């Protein structure tokens, strides 16, 4: 009778210190945004959603997606499983952040423009990005064999990265040729310094959160794969 298998190097109740710091950071930014930042004249308190919305949007697209794309290219070149796990984790955390954008966007829009959805260029592009990342996860879910799953995901990741500029181009072209109701844009350059500080703090806090979640998700993926290997050895 073989003794029960214990997965190596698991710290039972390890809490990633970075995750704690990140969450504390986000909470602090919220407090600052809600209590200590002036209310914007034209949009009212709803403008404060911007601090979450814009940060999440930026990070989801540029950090999450780009990381996923780069990890995909490197995986096809180096065939290192770790890179596949990085891509997987970046895609999943990116999906969470993108969902935040798609939820906060309409909330903000309803308050500012009176409509939940106006096919605003950036929000529409983000919607398509969301579809792409969902497709990425569906693909991963549909392939059982690890090597093939990694290869397929990497191919999709790279093609998706190539697609994003086309989506942006098409949506922006559509928007400029189809005049939409005049929007109140977030006036980034002329933000008073207090707002700017909150804005950048929010961005930094969310970036920290992204990295912390990425690391946690990566650990989960590593443990899952190690477990699968051990189970197969036993079989």
């Amino acid at each position, binding site marked *: 009778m073989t003794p029960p298998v214990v997965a190596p190097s698991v710290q039972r109740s390890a809490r990633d210190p970075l995750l704690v710091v990140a969450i504390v950071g986000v909470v602090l930014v919220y407090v600052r945004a809600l209590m200590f930042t002036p209310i914007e004249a034209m949009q009212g308190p709803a403008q404060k959603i911007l601090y979450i919305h814009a940060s999440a949007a930026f990070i989801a697209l540029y950090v999450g997606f780009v990381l996923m794309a780069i990890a995909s290219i490197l995986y096809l070149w180096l065939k290192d499983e770790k890179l596949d796990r990085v891509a997987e984790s970046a895609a999943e955390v990116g999906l969470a952040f993108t969902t935040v954008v798609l939820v906060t966007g309409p909330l903000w829009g309803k308050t500012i423009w009176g409509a939940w959805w106006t096919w605003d260029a950036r929000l529409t592009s983000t919607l398509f990005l969301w579809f792409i990342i969902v497709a990425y996860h569906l693909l991963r879910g549909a392939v059982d*064999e*690890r*090597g093939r799953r990694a290869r397929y995901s990497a191919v999709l990741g790279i093609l998706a990265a190539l697609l994003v500029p086309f989506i942006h181009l098409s949506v922006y072209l559509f928007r400029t040729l189809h005049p939409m109701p005049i929007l109140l844009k977030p006036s980034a350059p002329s933000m008073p310094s207090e707002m700017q500080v909150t804005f950048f703090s929010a961005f930094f806090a969310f970036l920290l959160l992204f990295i912390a979640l990425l690391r946690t998700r990566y650990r989960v993926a590593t443990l899952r794969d190690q477990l699968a*290997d051990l189970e*197969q*050895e036993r079989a």
Partner: protein
Amino acid sequence: MVQAERLVRTFSGRRAVDDVSFTLHAGDCLALFGPNGAGKTTLLRLLAGLLAPGGGRALVHGVALEAGPAARAQVGLVSHASMLYGTLTARENVEFAARMHGVPDAAAAALRALAAMRVEDRADTPVRTLSRGLQQRVSIARAIVHGPRLLLCDEPYTGLDEAGAAALTATLVERREAGAALLVVTHNLAEGLEIATQAAIMRRGRFVRHEARELLDASAYQSQYRELAAVDG
């Protein structure tokens, strides 16, 4: 001439082919026996260029496996599955294979191959209407139409009736005499030993026995094989 040196192939951490080496000269036939899961099919797929080795190398008539297309040109594969297109006729299937290999006068070559396997009278029948045994014959015709120098057969006698088995043995012998090397995986020791010049037993990715046929006594080999295979469970 086929030279395999320390071939390795891993799947999810497990070595399906583990340090396999052998040499086949023109006219050699290696009969490969072994229990299910021993790695025989994987070895064949490596030599056919369908899988890339994780370690080691192989040369087919001087061309390394890494050379890709140039190595694949020399190899013919007969596997469990028929590798045929059901909607197309036997002739169309074999002709397609001939053209993909660049055989001159593909149509005539296809007919010759079908005739060698005694199935030329069904040349214009859609393959999916043929019995399993006849499909197997067409599949073998497809594998030999380009005159491969290395013919890999994965349990080729499965599903063949007496006539088909006779046609196959005749074709294999003809290929050998034309200077090709053969590697035949089979569970039927008698059939395998009949055409072999070398015999090997594969277990867990390794060749646990490998010797020239003439040194073997068929009945003794059979009982030894049963012991070896039984150990695996």
